[in-house]
């Protein structure tokens, strides 16, 4: 009996001590891109703690590096390496407390899941003791990081979700966003519809996700305001829907000539081929969220030329990165040369991120939290999204313009901005191509 009691004691105490051992941040906190160890000092950091004394600025990025949303991260590593090289080597780092020290980024994979996203953000703040926290892509990334921001009072910058969904958890004291506004997004899509002569009957094919839900209320509101449109709504469908027979039959019977759909890529592909099967292709087919990536859209059957949706960035924006001084078009072309495929729209967000980070840290001149937050809130900078400032909701509103897939010169399909009313800086309302409609 004695021997067992001792073994039991050992088991329990080892267990307790190993938990306490986390105190020293023993596990190396992530592999920060651009080298450098994140062990850092040991000051208690929970709330209002002192900045750990280390020779570099550490930015923690909780992002979907695996799972369905990891597609947003396609250009990220390329942009991070380019920008860190530019900031740390060409510009010799950022001046903090009078000395120019390098900027480093440490990633934590949120696996496209809120449970892991919270653990990732918490780890970056408490274990890696980052100076600034980033949380990206859909509310899974933005809202969990913003919650950690409030909990640990750490300056946090989030982007890649509808402004309305992010603010559902707000208002935030310690989180600043760079998100598109869903009202503007839908406003531009409706603008496309007004420029095509149709019978004004709009069929809604919206799933039950955040975009579908927010989209339904927004579009019905706008269409009522405008008048001259009639909404046909067969009801929200579940993302796991195997078949659109019922919905398409309803739309066909109601002689709908405009479809406003919001669904993920597999459903978009299934919906588009079933429309063809029912040979019911209206004059305007808008499928939001599922048509972002040229490689995926290229695999739609039949050909996806003419489909419209809202693109969240486009290399044809007449702007350039303040940090690199290079135009949006140039950066996108360079990415395409390096990767041999159509550029992803998230490239714009990643470049804008570093423009903003560099500007904020330079203006703050210190890593003290309140100063950094103040710098974030007074941001006014030109980047690949044009001029970016912070609105009363602490969000830097970026455009989401009506776009159409058309025959491409360099790639089979190419994006063309057909409606930019909600964003004055882009005046190119290119002609709208009608898909091979059956009406």
């Amino acid at each position, binding site marked *: 009996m004695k021997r067992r009691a001792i073994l039991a004691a050992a088991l329990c105490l080892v267990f307790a001590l190993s938990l306490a051992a986390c105190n020293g941040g023993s596990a190396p906190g992530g592999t920060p891109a651009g080298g450098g160890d994140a062990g850092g000092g040991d000051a208690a950091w929970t709330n209002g703690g002192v900045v750990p004394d280390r020779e570099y600025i550490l930015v923690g990025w909780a992002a979907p590096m695996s799972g369905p949303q990891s597609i947003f991260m396609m250009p990220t590593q390329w942009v991070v390496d380019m920008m860190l090289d530019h900031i740390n080597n060409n510009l010799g780092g950022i001046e903090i407390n009078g000395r120019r020290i390098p900027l480093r980024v440490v990633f934590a994979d949120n696996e496209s899941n809120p449970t892991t996203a919270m653990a990732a953000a918490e780890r970056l703040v408490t274990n890696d003791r980052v100076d600034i926290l980033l949380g990206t892509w859909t509310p899974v990334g933005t809202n969990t990081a913003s919650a950690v921001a409030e909990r640990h009072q750490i300056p946090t910058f989030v982007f890649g979700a509808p402004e309305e969904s992010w603010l559902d958890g707000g208002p935030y004291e310690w989180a600043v966003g760079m998100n598109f506004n869903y009202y503007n997004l839908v406003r531009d899509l409706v603008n496309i519809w007004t420029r095509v002569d149709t019978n004004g009957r709009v069929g809604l094919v919206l799933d039950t996700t955040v975009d579908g839900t927010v989209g339904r209320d927004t579009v019905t509101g706008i269409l009522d305001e405008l008048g001259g449109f009639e909404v046909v709504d067969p009801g929200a469908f579940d993302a796991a829907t195997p078949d659109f027979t019922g919905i398409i039959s309803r739309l066909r019977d109601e002689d709908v000539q405009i479809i406003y759909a919001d669904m993920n890529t597999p459903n978009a592909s299934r919906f588009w081929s079933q429309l063809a*099967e029912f040979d019911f292709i209206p004059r305007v087919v808008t499928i939001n969220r599922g048509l972002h990536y040229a490689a995926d859209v290229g695999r739609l059957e039949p050909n996806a030329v003419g489909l419209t949706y809202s693109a969240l960035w486009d290399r044809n924006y007449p702007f350039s990165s303040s940090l690199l001084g290079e135009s949006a078009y140039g950066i996108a072309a360079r990415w395409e040369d390096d990767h041999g495929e159509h550029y992803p729209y998230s490239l714009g967000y990643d470049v804008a991120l570093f423009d903003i980070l560099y500007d904020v840290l330079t203006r703050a001149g210190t890593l003290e939290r309140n100063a950094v937050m103040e710098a974030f809130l007074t941001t006014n900078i030109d980047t690949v999204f044009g001029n970016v400032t912070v609105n009363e909701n602490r969000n830097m509103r970026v455009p989401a313009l009506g776009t159409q897939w058309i025959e491409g010169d360099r790639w089979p399909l190419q994006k063309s901005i057909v409606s930019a009313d909600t964003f004055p800086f882009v005046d190119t309302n290119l002609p709208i191509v009608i898909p091979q409609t059956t009406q």
Partner: protein
Amino acid sequence: MELFVQSLVSGILLGGLYAAIGVGLSLVFGIMGLTNIAHGSLLILSSFFIMIFVQAFGGSIILAFAITIVLMIAVGVLLQGFLINRVISKGAEPALLVTFGVAIIIWNILEFFFGANFFRLSNPLTGINVVSTRWMIIPATALFNLGISTVVILALHFVIQKTLFGRAIRAAAGNVNAAELMGINTSRTYIYAMCLALATSSVGGLLVGQTFGFFSFSGMGYLIIAFGVVVIGGMGSILGTFLGGIILGVAQLLGGYFFGPGVQTLVGYLTLLVLLTLRPQGLLGNMTRK
């Protein structure tokens, strides 16, 4: 009224595809009583293999499909021989975790190579409608799915019921010791059963790849459909799986017709539960592993 008929017909056609997804699992589930969580990921793995070989061998999908079947049989030998056979006698829970582990490993390796992009297998029959009236539209692709699925299931049923190989598998399922006493090496029989299951799942992989398209992680979505179909049909009953597929397909689409598109999938699952509680061993279930 037209939509009702259309939903019913589309439901049956969709049911054919569901049966093809479930049939491989029915074999493994019925023979070894293995709750194979990796079934969905393995199915999607076969879709990826077909896609790779289509690109590699200049677009002939039949050749790519043939090579995929051979490759999936090799995967079956490795998976069953070196992994599952060692764990299957240790009880249900370890086998459950091993197949969970395999499922996670497969979809993450796929994601490592193919990222989170969406893929689709081309289907020469797209756009052709066999029937295209006001009343009803039957796309050739859907009919193809039902046809192929019926052929595969009847063939598998024949192999299992009528051939010595099939009887040996059923013997191993009925009573392991008695089968060994017949000179049947049950471990090797499990490997054959898994290979047969993965070969038939490749059919599911082809049809899913053409109809819905796939990501590296869409396996789990199809796993729940496979389990539902197998459980309705009755564990280990191949014809039961076909019936289960049809019932699930029709239940979903009629559910959508009566209660709106949002609850299509929900009605499917509720139908599964009701049928399960009415007949716990499934409609045609007889071969329960001793």
